[in-house]
């Protein structure tokens, strides 16, 4: 029986710039690789995931017993602003790492990737310090609904950042072993998408949880 080969279907999202696409087109129906598409679908689901915890915090806001620590008693906005700035800078270094690997500049890729992981680690260190300070001031996971909703939300975000750091260090190690080339730029881009999303979530958390009284 003769085998028939399916012709690629026309790109439904084709725009006026498609004539210039050379390496930007993957051999799929959507024109995007499954890896990148899967990451975007995952990030879409993560929006709903984090939305659940943020809305839980908002639900319990102001309902903690008066004899337990309140947000205004424990929050250190200047300190959290600095850690937020660190995470923001890590997004810059991440995107610079992607630009570096695309140019074939492996030295700068390793520098920027390690910088991203370092900024992320500083952020996590800041979170750990903040958690211990809160605990010292009498706010624990079981103290009140404020404590549980705050620690669960920020703890899960911190876990995401930690996974991202491990991912980045893995990529750095692969680069040191000369196992990453220009043709692997998409791997870096997918890692970058995850990292930027983690930063985006913190933008929301910092505003809604810390800055809005």
């Amino acid at each position: 029986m003769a085998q028939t080969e399916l012709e690629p279907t026309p790109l439904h999202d084709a725009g006026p710039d498609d004539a210039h696409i050379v390496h930007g087109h993957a051999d799929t129906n959507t024109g995007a690789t499954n890896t990148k598409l899967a990451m975007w679908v995952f990030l879409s689901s993560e929006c709903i995931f984090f939305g659940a915890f943020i809305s839980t915090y908002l639900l319990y806001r102001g309902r903690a017993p008066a004899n337990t620590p309140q947000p205004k008693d424990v929050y250190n906005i200047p300190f959290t602003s600095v850690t937020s700035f660190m995470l923001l800078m890590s997004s810059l270094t991440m995107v610079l790492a992607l630009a570096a690997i695309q140019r074939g500049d492996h030295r700068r890729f390793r520098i920027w990737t390690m910088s991203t992981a370092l900024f992320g680690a500083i952020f996590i260190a800041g979170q750990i310090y903040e958690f211990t300070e809160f605990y010292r001031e009498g706010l624990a996971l079981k103290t009140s609904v404020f404590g549980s909703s705050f620690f669960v939300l920020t703890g899960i975000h911190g876990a995401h950042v930690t996974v991202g750091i491990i991912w980045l260090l893995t990529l750095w190690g692969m680069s040191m072993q000369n196992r990453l080339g220009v043709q692997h730029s998409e791997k870096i881009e997918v890692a970058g998408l995850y990292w930027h999303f983690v930063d985006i979530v913190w933008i929301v958390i910092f505003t809604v949880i810390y800055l809005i009284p």
Partner: protein
Amino acid sequence: MSDETSIATPDDPALLPGTAAERAAEDAEGMSVISSDELAMLPGELRPHPSPFQYVMIAVILCVITALEVGTYYLPNDFPRALYITILMVLALTKFVIVAAFFMHLRFDRPLFRRFFVTGAIGAILLYTIVLATLHVFE
């Protein structure tokens, strides 16, 4: 699944941007002399993404917005609460859009990615706004 990274991987010469002289100049001067237009586009991209210098400028804008956000925290207590929350939300949304559009390349990628992400984000906002309103949080 083939293990394509099990051996030392040389760069695919077809994907390296610019000429050898330009790449050497970039290494020597430490600046990006190769235009971002010459970078091989990643799968799913429709337009070249920003240059490293542009990324730095975007980061500066994000820092300024962050500083404004923190500054609003120190507004006097008699500042209208509704206006205060509105300002914070606008600033946070601006940062959100800038990071998503430029750092995550949504502005330069196929609309398909934007549709997925926006669906999730707006879906989450709508869903939880309805849940919170049902539980009388906004009263």
